[in-house]
């Protein structure tokens, strides 16, 4: 069940918010080992009001990350397991006729939560996928002609298994664009894996974690993150990167203006998470692969094997002003 945050009265002052964010980060770091950079990216995604797509093999902690995020942020959490027979109504909810009252009553679906984990989103049919994706875009759902607002903040973490090919419906580029970031978690290193094996059960640990932030705090953090200073030279840098994706012979379709906006928003949020005085070139580089990776369409004759390599190539060929 939804767990009420015990910290709704947490101070939302600037310093209080700042401290809460640091606490969120350290708590996440203790649960998910050796993934500091990824956690910073996931937090930045959240602070930039974006949805997150985690693409990786099963068993690498995708679900754990989403649950941990919801728990420490004090957000209400729902998980939707996407299957090939999932219907849109299973996501948004249905109107049920109540005989005793003689009227229809809306039964809200799992989408009415603050953090949704859409597990294995590529297993569902495009129809079910689009129901979720519309909710992500509009922050509202329409059922039987009634428009219902989703809770605020609203944050979707979708996971996708790239290895499965049979019986899946990979998200098309246009819909991938709805996700601000795409992350790959990757294997933990030896040391972290050993700690994982010998240490406490992560699920038990997660149950013990208290919320260290609140939805209100998250909203205020989002506002602060958007106001981080970005200097002229770095705007130039973003433009140069975007131009490079459009002009590079290795890339068929480069970043759209929306992609560029996403890059700026994510870089600001990342700078905020990293305590930087303004956006640094490092922030842009840190978020670049996760922002651009799923938005670029590599050329068919490119020698780069993955989107990550391609993004690194773009970064390596643009000078920092």
């Amino acid at each position, binding site marked *: 069940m939804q767990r009420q945050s015990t910290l709704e009265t947490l101070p939302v002052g600037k310093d209080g918010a700042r401290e809460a964010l640091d606490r969120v980060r350290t708590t996440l770091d203790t649960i998910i080992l050796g993934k500091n950079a990824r956690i910073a990216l996931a937090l930045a995604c959240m602070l930039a009001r974006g949805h997150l797509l985690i693409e990786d093999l099963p068993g690498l902690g995708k679900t754990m990350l989403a649950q941990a995020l919801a728990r420490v942020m004090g957000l209400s959490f729902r998980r939707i397991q996407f299957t090939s027979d999932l219907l849109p109504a299973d996501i948004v909810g249905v109107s049920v006729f109540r005989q005793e009252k003689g009227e229809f009553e809306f039964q809200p679906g799992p989408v009415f939560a603050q953090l949704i984990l859409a597990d294995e989103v590529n297993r569902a049919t495009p129809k079910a996928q689009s129901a979720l994706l519309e909710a992500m875009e509009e922050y509202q759902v329409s059922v039987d002609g009634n428009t219902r607002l989703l809770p605020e903040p609203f944050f979707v973490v979708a996971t996708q298994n790239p290895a499965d090919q049979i019986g899946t419906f990979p998200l098309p580029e246009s819909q991938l664009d709805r996700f601000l970031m795409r992350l790959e978690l990757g294997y933990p290193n030896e040391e972290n894996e050993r700690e994982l094996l010998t240490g406490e059960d992560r699920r038990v640990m997660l149950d013990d974690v208290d919320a260290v932030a609140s939805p209100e705090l998250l909203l205020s953090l989002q506002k602060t993150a958007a106001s981080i*200073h970005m200097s002229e030279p770095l705007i130039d840098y973003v433009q140069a990167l975007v131009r490079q994706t459009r002009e590079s012979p290795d890339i068929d379709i480069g970043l759209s203006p929306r992609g560029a906006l996403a890059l700026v928003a994510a870089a600001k949020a990342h700078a905020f998470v990293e305590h930087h005085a*303004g956006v640094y*070139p*490092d922030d842009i580089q840190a978020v670049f692969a996760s922002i651009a990776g799923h938005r670029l369409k590599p050329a068919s004759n490119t020698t780069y094997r993955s989107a990550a390599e391609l993004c690194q190539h773009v*970064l390596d*060929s643009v000078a920092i002003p």
Partner: protein
Amino acid sequence: MPKARGTDGSLLTSLPWTLAALVFSLVPHVQFLPLWITAAFVICGAWRYLIERRRRALPSPYLRVLLALGCFLGVFATYATISGVGPGSALLAIMAALKLLETRKRRDQFVLLFIAIFLVMSTLLREQYLWSLPYLVVAVLLIMTAWLRVSAAAGETAGHSFRTGGRLILYAAPLAIAMWIFFPRLANPFWAVPMDTGTAKSGISDSMSPGDISSLSMSNAVAFRVNFAGRIPEPRDRYWRGLVLTLFNGRTWSGNDPFEGPRVHEQVFGNGESVSYQITLEPTRQQWVFALDMPWSWTLPRTFMGPQQQLARSRPIDRRVSYEVTSYLDYRTDVALTDYARSWYERIPPESNKRTQALAKQMRAAASSDAAYIEAVLRMFHEQEYFYTLQPPPLGSSPVDRFMFDTRRGFCEHYASAFAVMMRAAGIPARIVLGYQGGEMNPMGGHMIVRQSDAHAWNEVWLDSVGWYRVDPTSAVAPGRIESGVSESMFDGVASTWGFSATSALLHRLSLTWDAMNAKWNEWVLGYGPENQSRFMKWLGMDNPDWRNMLLTLTAIIVGLILLISVILTLRYRPPAKDRAAILYARFVKRTGMEPLTGETPAIFAARAEAESQLPAEMIRAVTSTYLDARYGPCDLASLHRLELAVAAMHRQ
């Protein structure tokens, strides 16, 4: 909840500056303040500094309240009042000292610096001199520097604050000058500075006992300056008449109420050519108005001639005044002496100075007439063993007897006093005139300087055929004193005391130049009143310079100047403060001897440089982090300055 009283040394960077500003603002007050206030000030300053230095706690509120109460009562006990410049500045100084003891934060230091500004400005309430200007500039600069130190970013040097302070003052200077020129001067100001009754008077006092003038003779201070319209009188005619002493108690001469008797034109008859001149009199805090013997007309308001032909203003002269006088060097005072007045002028205490009285009677009997007797007395001073010296031996309870028969050494006041006693003992009405004799022309300024060292006392005797007649017994003893002025003799005295050669002409020249500058400053700057302003406005082309026009002009000028400064600042503001950061960073990159790769962020480059270059790692980190801040952080000059410091540190290495 009681406030925390502990200190953590965080004020150590700014506190010395605040203390220095406070001390500097107190300096001109020290000579006027009672010693205990200065002592309390110094003690509180040192105490506060030690507290900060040793991270001790500030004194408790009870102690502070007690101290404040004690000091207030102390000021009240010293002055018997708390209004006026003296008690006011004393209170201000003591409050600043006590405020130090509760200074915990930046805000408190701002209050202290405000007090410092008040202290500096209150020195102007006393008197303004030429040196007041450089003092003010330095004091304000120091206070501004302290101010900027208080709010300085970490790593900002004192020199930086100092330069910023100087720049701010330079921006403000044109505004201040415009205000000074155009702010309407009113003939009758709405406010006045209350005069301190307890302030020391300067110059000649209104009584004379042995030793008074000798202290003046050593003072090189200017008594007044004179600009002659035409002919300049000979040195022997330069008797600047001040007050007249008529009462003698055997030791001390004093005057009586000057505000009685007929007006000047009924008292004085001038012969021959008159002399016109302008006197700029330094404040004396007394009523006496000096003029060349004998004044005929003058322009100083509320100034009258008393029955003994001395000029006095109804209000003491508490600031520098300037007035024009016409005098007759050759004059007659043709007022009949009443029997009552005659008895007044012949009175001496019969039991005092008996030997002198006996000598006078004996000499008068030997002389054929009053005039012959006067001749004889002067001849006695001239021919017998009487000496003119500025360091006479002390005299006892019958000073005239002792001077006449024992010591025989003295200067004008001894001779004037002895002469007056000799005359009165012989039945001739006599009195003493105090004033100045001499004056030195300043070739630089074209004016005459009369100094306190020119202070002089001479006599007037009543001769029935002539009226009051000036006799200077000092000239019989030391004709040089009268013919050439005291300055040479005085100069010898000073020179021998201080070990200068007698012909330190250069020194003299320098002092004359300084005096000429002072005279011009007094005339043009300090004397810039309603008349000068009106004249200046007309010269500027303003037809009808009333206060409305002046205020309008002033407003226009201020708006114009502010616009001008804004335009200059806008033009000088270069957003590429960032580029400056890039230039500095390029120096650092060059220094590492490495080339950043395309797309390599400064942080990654720093990590590589730490591994590959010879520069110390902490230096690389310092430059990199400050560079990121300065170039990519919010536009902030302080971070750029920190980068400058980091790169400079690297270059020193």
